[in-house]
């Protein structure tokens, strides 16, 4: 029982917290290096995002798309499929839900639902390109999705500059969506989009933990050959997984469009984009739905807080991106292995040092 507890909770917790602390520490050094106070900077970030009701709501609002992109990547990572195209699928989903949002005037509930569906379908369709290439021609999905991201950026830019451009707007932007397609703000910051994200989270949780498909995803991720020999049509499953992932990504974009941005601009996704944040969140949450939920809220807090640091310090808000990069770097290694415990290894190392000293003395 104790061993189980250690394996299931302590080691994962340590493996998550250590990289976070290290990344924040290095980020602190960078802040210090440009002549600012890291404690003050982090203090502002946390207090503005977590210590007030408004702040918490805003954090949860920011977390809504991040939960989705995090889940979208986590489900593919779990199957050892690298859908790095979540950003592009999200952007296209957002764009076309936006187009649907300003092109039609429908009763709110219907309009919102249809807009979300447009986003989901766009995401799925765009994810199907790498999925089919992988399934039929064994093309490496990672490289394809990475490149299609750039294509997605260029396509949306082109469309936003041309056909769907709002001439009244100064910069490149589409028309604003009609109010019937907007999520109403509950209070100051949060919308029903958060609720949708939570529903998707519950769905994915059940899918991953209880369902046959979840079992198959895990098997494919852990040992593809075994999965094949056990009768799973791996490539067909990969298409399903990519469709789920793309759909959720599209939903993230559509929801963000309808609850926050209301129109498409070239800086819709921010820097780094919501899809890229999803990768960090999936890693931080160890590909586990609950982990993803917590990680998304944590990261949303950082992002929300970063909006305020300019007001109080000279630190550019891109510091969050820097910390994010460092954090991913640290998350790529396992501080503690599942099998060997950290303390045991340290003890072993000490012993071997002592042992070798003893040997030289003789």
């Amino acid at each position, binding site marked *: 029982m104790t061993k189980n507890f250690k394996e299931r909770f302590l080691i994962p917790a340590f493996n998550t917290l250590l990289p976070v602390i290290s990344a924040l520490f290095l980020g602190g050094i*960078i802040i210090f290096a*440009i002549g600012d106070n890291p404690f003050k900077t982090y203090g502002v970030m946390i207090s503005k995002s977590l210590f007030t009701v408004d702040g918490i709501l805003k954090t949860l609002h920011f977390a809504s798309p991040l939960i989705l992109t995090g889940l979208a990547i986590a489900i593919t990572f779990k199957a050892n499929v*690298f859908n*790095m195209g979540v950003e592009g699928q999200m952007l296209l989903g957002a764009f076309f839900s936006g187009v649907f949002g300003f092109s039609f005037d429908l009763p709110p509930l219907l309009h919102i639902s249809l807009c979300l569906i447009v986003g989901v379908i766009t995401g799925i369709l765009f994810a199907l*390109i790498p999925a089919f*290439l992988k399934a*039929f*021609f*064994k*093309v*490496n999905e*990672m*490289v*394809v999705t*990475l*490149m*299609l*991201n*750039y*294509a997605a950026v*260029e*396509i949306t*830019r*082109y469309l936003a*500059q*041309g056909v769907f451009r709002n001439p009244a707007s100064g910069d490149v932007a589409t028309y604003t969506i009609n109010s019937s397609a907007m999520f109403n703000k509950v209070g100051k910051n949060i919308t029903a989009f958060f609720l949708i994200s939570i529903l998707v989270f519950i769905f994915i949780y059940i899918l991953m933990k209880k369902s046959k498909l979840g079992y198959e995803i895990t098997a494919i991720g852990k040992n593809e050959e075994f999965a*094949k020999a056990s009768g799973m049509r791996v490539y067909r499953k990969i298409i399903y997984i990519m469709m789920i992932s793309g759909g959720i990504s599209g939903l993230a974009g559509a929801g963000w469009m309808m609850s926050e941005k209301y129109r498409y601009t070239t800086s819709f996704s921010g*820097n*780094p984009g919501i899809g*890229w944040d999803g*990768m960090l969140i999936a*890693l931080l949450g160890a590909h586990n739905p609950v982990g993803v939920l917590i990680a998304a809220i944590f990261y949303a807090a950082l992002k929300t807080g970063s909006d305020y640091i300019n007001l109080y310090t*000279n630190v*550019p*808000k*891109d*510091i*969050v*991106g*820097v910390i*994010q*990069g*460092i*954090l*991913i*770097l*640290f*998350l*790529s*290694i*396992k501080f503690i292995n599942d099998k060997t415990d950290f303390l045991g290894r340290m003890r072993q190392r000490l012993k071997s040092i002592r042992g070798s000293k003893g040997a030289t003395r003789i």
Partner: protein
Amino acid sequence: MSLINNILYDTVYHSAPLILLVLGGIFAYKANVLNIALEGMMLLGAFSSAYFVLITKSLLWGIIVGVILTLILGLIFSYFSVTLKSNFIITGLGINMFTLALSGFLLQFFSIPNINVSSIVSTANLKIDIPFLKDIPIIAPILSGHTFLTYFSFVCIFLAGVLMFKTKFGTYVRVVGENEEAAKSVGIKSDRIKYLAVLIGAFLCALAGANLSVERTALYTNNMTAGRGFIAIAAIYCGRGMPVKSTLYATVFGLTKSLSINLALNAGPVSGLFETVPYVMMVIVLGVVSAIESRRTKLR
């Protein structure tokens, strides 16, 4: 005629940094540490060389500092992926995001939209005409009048081939990638080989970055590498890490890029869409190559 000339000249021009990236990536690819961080390394090379040209007021010193910094980044990548045995794909993506964020962060901090070194570097003077070649009618306007690093990149194809197949180091790189156990069993320090393979990559990425920012346009703009690192990875996949074959695929990108730019000039309203062509083209090439390769396989 001049359009075709332009297209071909631009093909060489756009292929050059890609070739450097591809050659930088093949050694790591062959040694089984796929360097997905080519993009980030190139970006750092572009950013730091531009920035240090600005600081040192010297093209050469700027590039040297850029190379050194990128090598340090290469060391970080190899420390994580070789020594700490990380998931090197994730490490590489982390490095890409880190360099992109850091360069953006620093631009914000300096409160400048981009790094313009045109007052120090005259791009026109960097173009070198090759004696004899420049007098040959049709070829001259295509092959002559490029910058030093552009020529260097083509020389590198040959150098990389020799290094890969005629020397101990190259043999060891291939052995480490093919059967690391075998390499270790005869005393080859496989970790060291992997470090070197990554560092060669970092060095060439830095040059590719410098070529892109200071040497060509004397300007660094945010995220100017625009996925070239990933395209290089695709080219390496297509060419299976063989120097000549992989660089050929890189020139396919150069050609499409050049076509999209030159044709966009006459394309009117849809010209914006041409930007996507190189990426889509690479996806198609990758698909075709993989389809041909997997055509024979009877394994499900």
